[in-house]
């Protein structure tokens, strides 16, 4: 760590040139100015002495100042860190979930058209330069979307193409015999088309909300899907407990609206409510009991989690008309600059919506890139696991394909992921330099970028030491997790 800070200090010190503008200046007291600044930044001393004084300050908790603006680095850091983390956290979580699902499905359908298509798409995404995507999103998608939201005129060709694509995706993902393929394709295409048409025709875009009907559909569907994946529909107790949880969620919809209306919310309340929901889910699962209580409890909790998220999203969407009408955003809801609309004094829900519209584009940019690598990684590790002997054994003893995949294969295939996720998270923070710069988020990456351009060594060093330190920690953590999960590996540290 000391070595890292030393080497990078010397490197950065050599790289930047704080006197550049003065050397080229024509003012009469040039010599005087140079001397002043040299004294301020201790340029008259050797780099070693400068490093030493920086290190002394750093160890004592004084991160130095950005001398061009005279801001203390210590004051800039907390803001920058929270901005970066909120940006990257969401993107990483989304990318992991999507990447794992698509990777696993692609591995299970190895050497089919679906697999080839996914491989090709992930290759393309992998080769995309993030800055190009970001500029594209900002200049193209944002403008298009905003125009569209202002005057929703459906582009039928696009709708049809999207529906067919969606149908093809589901067809490939579910697979099966030609007859079933056609059926899946037709129903998925029709369903997508119907939903999109409903959204466009009914004016949903002006007054978006999910409502009690949508909530019921989503809650029951998620109860069934969760049960199907984790317990199998044959496990009646698990199915009933998940459905009960969904029913409780639906029954609580109106009381919750009332509650949200009369009480000012903040994140603490939300998390308490979420915790309560999960507890309810666990409790219902426990009450249904049976020989395999844990499975029912897990299904109940997951259903509760999904239902609560839907209720939350619904409430946030409800403020959209009001948000759209407010003068602050000037009728352009999808923002391209910054992390929030400045001086938007609004209640909790509107703030959330505002955050969401700001985080949307940078998240898409980040997810597109890292999604590709997760998909490829997960596909590879799933394929490797599926060719193991114990999978054959599991199949041979007559376990259903669901149990083989979910219990035997997926758990083992997820293990290597624990080794790369922490490191990837940090690389993303580093890689977010570009995304933050383009979308004007004043996070860590932008701090580094600006400071390096302005020849300010202290912020640059704070960034390097922080990122370097956290990377080391993450490496240790990754090794540790891996050792915990995989008893074959011994960590000798």
């Amino acid at each position, binding site marked *: 760590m000391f070595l890292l800070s030393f080497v*990078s200090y010397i490197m950065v010190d050599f790289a930047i040139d704080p*006197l550049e503008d003065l050397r080229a200046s024509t003012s009469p007291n040039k010599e005087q100015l140079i001397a002043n600044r040299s004294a301020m930044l201790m340029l008259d001393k050797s780099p070693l002495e400068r490093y030493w004084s920086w290190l002394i300050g750093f160890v004592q908790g004084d991160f130095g100042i950005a001398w061009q603006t005279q801001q203390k680095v210590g004051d800039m850091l907390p803001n920058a860190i929270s901005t970066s983390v909120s940006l990257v956290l969401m993107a990483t979580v989304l990318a992991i979930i999507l990447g794992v699902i698509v990777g696993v499905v692609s591995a299970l359908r190895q050497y089919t058209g679906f697999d080839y298509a996914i491989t090709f798409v992930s290759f393309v995404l992998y*080769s995309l*330069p993030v*800055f190009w995507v970001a500029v594209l999103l900002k200049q193209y998608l944002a403008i298009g979307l905003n125009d569209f939201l202002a005057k929703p005129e459906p582009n039928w060709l696009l709708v049809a193409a999207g529906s067919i694509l969606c149908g093809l995706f589901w067809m490939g993902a579910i697979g099966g015999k030609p007859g079933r393929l056609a059926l899946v394709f037709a129903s998925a295409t029709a369903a997508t088309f119907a939903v999109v048409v409903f959204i466009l025709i009914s004016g949903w875009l002006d007054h978006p909300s999910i409502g009690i009907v949508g909530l019921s559909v989503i809650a029951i569907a998620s109860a069934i899907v969760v049960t199907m994946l984790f317990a199998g529909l044959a496990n009646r107790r698990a199915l009933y407990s998940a459905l009960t949880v969904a029913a409780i969620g639906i029954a609580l919809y109106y009381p919750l609206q009332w509650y949200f209306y009369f009480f000012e919310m903040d994140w603490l309340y939300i998390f308490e409510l979420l915790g309560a929901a999960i507890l309810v889910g666990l409790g219902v699962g426990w009450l249904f009991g049976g020989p395999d209580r844990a499975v029912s409890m897990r299904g109940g909790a997951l259903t509760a989690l999904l239902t609560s998220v839907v209720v939350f999203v619904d409430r946030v969407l409800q403020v959209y008309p009001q948000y759209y009408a407010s003068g602050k955003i000037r009728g352009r809801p999808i923002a391209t600059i910054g992390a929030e609309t400045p001086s938007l004094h609004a209640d909790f829900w509107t703030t959330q919506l505002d955050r969401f519209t700001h985080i949307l584009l940078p998240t898409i940019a980040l997810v597109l890139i890292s999604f590709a690598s997760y998909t490829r990684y997960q596909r590879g590790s799933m394929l490797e696991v599926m060719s193991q002997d114990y999978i054959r054994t599991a199949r041979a003893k007559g376990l259903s394909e669901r149990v083989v995949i979910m219990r035997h294969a997926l758990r083992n295939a997820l293990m290597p992921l624990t080794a790369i996720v922490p490191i990837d998270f940090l690389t993303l923070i580093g*890689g977010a*330099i*570009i995304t933050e710069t383009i979308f004007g988020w004043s996070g860590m990456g932008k701090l580094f970028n600006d400071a390096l351009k302005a020849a300010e060594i202290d912020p640059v060093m704070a960034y390097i030491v922080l990122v*370097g330190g956290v990377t080391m920690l993450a490496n240790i953590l990754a090794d540790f997790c891996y050792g915990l999960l995989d008893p074959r590996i011994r960590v000798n540290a």
Partner: protein
Amino acid sequence: MNEEELDYQAGEGRGDNAIEAKETEGLSQGQIVWRKFTRHVGAMSALGVLLATALFAISAMGVGPIPGWWKYQDPEATHPMENGGAPSANHPFGQDNIGVDNFAAVMTGVKTSLLIMVLIGVTTLIVGVSVGALAGYYRGWLDNLLMRFTDLVITLPTLVIGAVLGVMVSKAPGKLGWSDESVQEVYRWMPVLLGIALGLILWPSLARLVRGEFLALREREFVDSARVAGASDLRIMLKHILPNSVGVIIVNVTLLMSSAVVLETALSFLGFGVRSPNISLGNLISTNQGAFATRPWLFWWPGLFIIIIALTVNFIGDGLRDAFDPRTKKIPSISKMRRSFAQFTKEQ
């Protein structure tokens, strides 16, 4: 599902595979790899596209003193506006707001990016293989020292070190007070310097892999027999171990080069990499991003070429990986396997 499984097993069991059949004839390892690679449709078409792009760009803008076939050889010269700057017969990629020919600029950018990519590949290859080979072969304190050094370089995101190095290369001459001509000279060679500098930070992952290979291979019998026969350390490393680890090395250098293209363009985009008077695809996008609404072609073409280069190199790397991996076998499609299974049952 069950029937499919059965089909699958049957298809695999028959092994009606040209390479496998030939394997019994006794092909050398190199021949097997070469055959597998040339039969990899994706990799071969990617190789074709990449070579075509490189040839096109180089022949269009010329190499060194030799002029190319494109009529506007100076990517900075301004020409009278045609068609309001939109793509026209004279300027197929359009013009920017002062009339610079976009085709010349993009082609020069492609040349620069390819040059940097190759330089990064070569530098990484040299440094990574030497470090990895020494650490893996000699082990002990040398290994420790080199690996700690590797850890140090790998700690920071490459973009960060790349940015610092990029600034260093561009600022150092001015800071050291060199004469104007030598500063100009340094700027002219900026892409070369940048390529080498980036190569100097991208080698650790390769070094680790090579070290692993050397650690495993040095315990093998053929190394012992070479040593007993009196071979020197250098000879063992170069003649006996290195050829056996060449697969890992080639595959990883290729994949590294594809990410290097994106890294270089990203740095140039941020303004830490190639800067004027040199042109790279990254700084073309950076200067033109504001003009997206009015002159989108200035933005599309450089991006398209970045994707083409990175994608093709990626595909080539993937093809190489399959070719070098003895476990991958070409598996016929499901319908083919069904057919062969049907034939198989009929024969019996």
